[in-house]
C-alpha cells in the first residue's frame, strides 16, 4: 500500500521531469513551447465552457429534483431479483452522471459498511472500472460539433454495465461474500 501511495506521489513529477529533460536533449525551446501549448490549452477550456455549463446545470437539476432517487427505487427490486446487491444500485446509476455525486455515495458506503466489507470492496472496484459516460461523451463530441453520436452510447453503457457486474463477481470470487 505504502508503495502505491509513494508511487502516486512520484508519477506526476516524474512524468513532467521525463518530458522536460527529453525536450532539452532534443534541443526543443522548452519554455516557449510550453507557453504555446498552455495558450492552446486555455483556448480549449474556453471552447468547451458552454458545454460544461449546460452539462453541469442539467446534472444539478436532475439531482436536485430527485429523479435519480426515483430511478434507483425502480432499479432496486430488479437488482435484488438478479442477485445484485441493492445497496450498490444507486452508485452504479449515479456514477454514469456525476463523478462527485458518485464519490459521495462511495464514502457513504465506506462509512456505513466499512471499506473492507463486501459492499465497500465492490464499490471501490466499481468506481475504478466505470466512467461518467454522459459527461465524457458530451464534452468530447460537442467540442467538435458532432451531434449524431451513433453507437458510442450503447457501447459505453454496455461496458459500464459489464463493469458493474464484473466488480460484484470478481470481489465475491476473490474475497467471498
Amino acid at each position, binding site marked *: 500500500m505504502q508503495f502505491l501511495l509513494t508511487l*502516486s506521489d512520484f508519477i506526476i513529477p516524474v512524468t513532467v521531469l521525463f518530458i522536460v529533460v527529453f525536450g532539452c536533449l532534443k534541443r526543443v525551446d522548452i519554455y516557449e513551447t510550453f507557453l504555446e501549448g498552455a495558450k492552446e*490549452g486555455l483556448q480549449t477550456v474556453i471552447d468547451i465552457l458552454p458545454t*460544461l*455549463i449546460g452539462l453541469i446545470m442539467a446534472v444539478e437539476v436532475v439531482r*436536485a429534483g430527485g*429523479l435519480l432517487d426515483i430511478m434507483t427505487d425502480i432499479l432496486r427490486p430488479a437488482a435484488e431479483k438478479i442477485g445484485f446487491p441493492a445497496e450498490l444500485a444507486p452508485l452504479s446509476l449515479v456514477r454514469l452522471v456525476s463523478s462527485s455525486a458518485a464519490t459521495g455515495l462511495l464514502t457513504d458506503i465506506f462509512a456505513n459498511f466499512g471499506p473492507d466489507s463486501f459492499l465497500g470492496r465492490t464499490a471501490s472496484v466499481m468506481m475504478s472500472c466505470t466512467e461518467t459516460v454522459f459527461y465524457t461523451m458530451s464534452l468530447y*463530441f460537442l467540442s467538435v*460539433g458532432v*451531434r449524431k453520436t451513433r453507437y458510442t452510447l450503447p457501447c459505453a453503457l454496455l*461496458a459500464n454495465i459489464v463493469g458493474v457486474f464484473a466488480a460484484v463477481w470478481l470481489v465475491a470470487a476473490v474475497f467471498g461474500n
Partner: protein
Amino acid sequence: MLNGIWGFFVIGGIITGAFLGRMDLVTRSVITGGKSALELAFTMAGVVAVWSGILKIAERGGMIDSLAEKLTPLMDFLFPSVPRGHRARQYIAANFAANFLGLGWAATPAGLMAMKELQKLNRDKGRATGAMCMFLTVNMSSLQLVTVNILAYRSEYGSAAPAEIVGIGIAATLVTTLVGVAAAKILEGRA
C-alpha cells in the same frame, strides 16, 4: 442523442422536483449550476493549460510520435480508417497513455485534440466516425492502472489494506475495455 439526454435531465428533473416538493432545491440548482461549472472550468483551465504545455514539449521533441509508432499494431486494429503517421494517432496515443497512468487531467487536452484531428478526417461533420466511436468507447471503458483517489478514500475510512482491490480493479477494467471494443467493432461492421 445528446439533445435527448440533456432535455430528459432538465425536464425530468424539474417535473420530479415539482411532484416531490423539492422545487426550492431545483431553483437553487438552476441558479448555481452555471456557477459550479465556471468554478470547475477555472480549476480545470489551470491544470489543462499546464498539461497542454507539457504535452507540446513532448510533441515537439518527437516523443509522442514514437509512442504512437510503438502502438501501431493496436492503432491499426482500433482505428484502421486513421492513416499511419496522422496526428490523430499521436493524440490518441497520448490520451491512452495519460489515462492509463491515472493522469486524468493530462488526458483531457490530448483527448480533445484527438477529437479535433479525427473531425478533420470526417466527411459528414455532424455525424461521428467509426474512429470517434471507438476512441470514446475505449476512453469511457476507463482503462486505468491504479485509481489513486479511491485508495486514498479507502485508507481515510480505515481500510486495513486499501490497495487490495487494485488487482481486481485492473481485471475489471480489462473486461470493460474488451467488451467495449468488441461491441464497437461489431456495431461498426453493421453500420
